[in-house]
């Protein structure tokens, strides 16, 4: 069965520091992978997606993610975080856009 694990419930990073949010998935075939961000009180916004091709994917707001098949991972990275990046981040996996499974989320706090 498909599943997504985000092992970090809450991460605090200093402003200007680099960021990596972890995501591991379980899926038998080639997965479709997504990262979403949710600001407080808002819905989810798509940051980036991977379907095939280059395993390093660029997204909005300066984020990128790398698909590593051998590790079943799709970690999200940003070289320098800004206070506005404080939010909850969700990794998701699906066999098609019609059935996507979300991880439990990682809450990111930014230290001034």
């Amino acid at each position, binding site marked *: 069965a498909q599943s997504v694990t985000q092992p970090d*419930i809450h991460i605090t990073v200093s402003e200007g520091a680099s960021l990596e949010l972890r995501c591991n998935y379980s899926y038998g075939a080639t997965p479709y992978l997504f990262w979403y961000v949710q600001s407080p009180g808002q*819905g989810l916004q798509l940051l980036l997606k991977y379907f095939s091709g280059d395993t390093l994917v660029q997204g909005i707001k300066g984020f990128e993610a790398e698909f590593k098949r051998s590790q079943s991972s799709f970690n999200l990275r940003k070289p320098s975080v800004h206070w506005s990046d404080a939010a909850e981040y*969700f990794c998701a996996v699906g066999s098609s856009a019609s059935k996507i499974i979300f991880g439990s989320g990682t809450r990111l706090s930014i230290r001034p």
Partner: protein
Amino acid sequence: DVKVTQSSRYLVKRTGEKVFLECVQDMDHENMFWYRQDPGLGLRLIYFSYDVKMKEKGDIPEGYSVSREKKERFSLILESASTNQTSMYLCASSYRREDYYGYTFGSGTRLTVV
């Protein structure tokens, strides 16, 4: 940009009431979804629909029903609200069943059942 609009941001209802949560999208998307979001549990799929008058159960359909009479509107119905249905409800839509562009989400409805 496609917009998904949920009619209420906050709702307070009493136990046993019938509750309607409305969702409208304005870009002719075929697929629509209802999720609930609870701390530590992420998003859980309640129901989804690929077309008008079609509906399929998600992972946690118990206590809920849905209605899709028009392509742009997908309603979630709590037949008899209970306190364990207090949650954030998120509606989402996507273009076509075969498209892999991800979902567009509404801003959510925070429902409190007292």
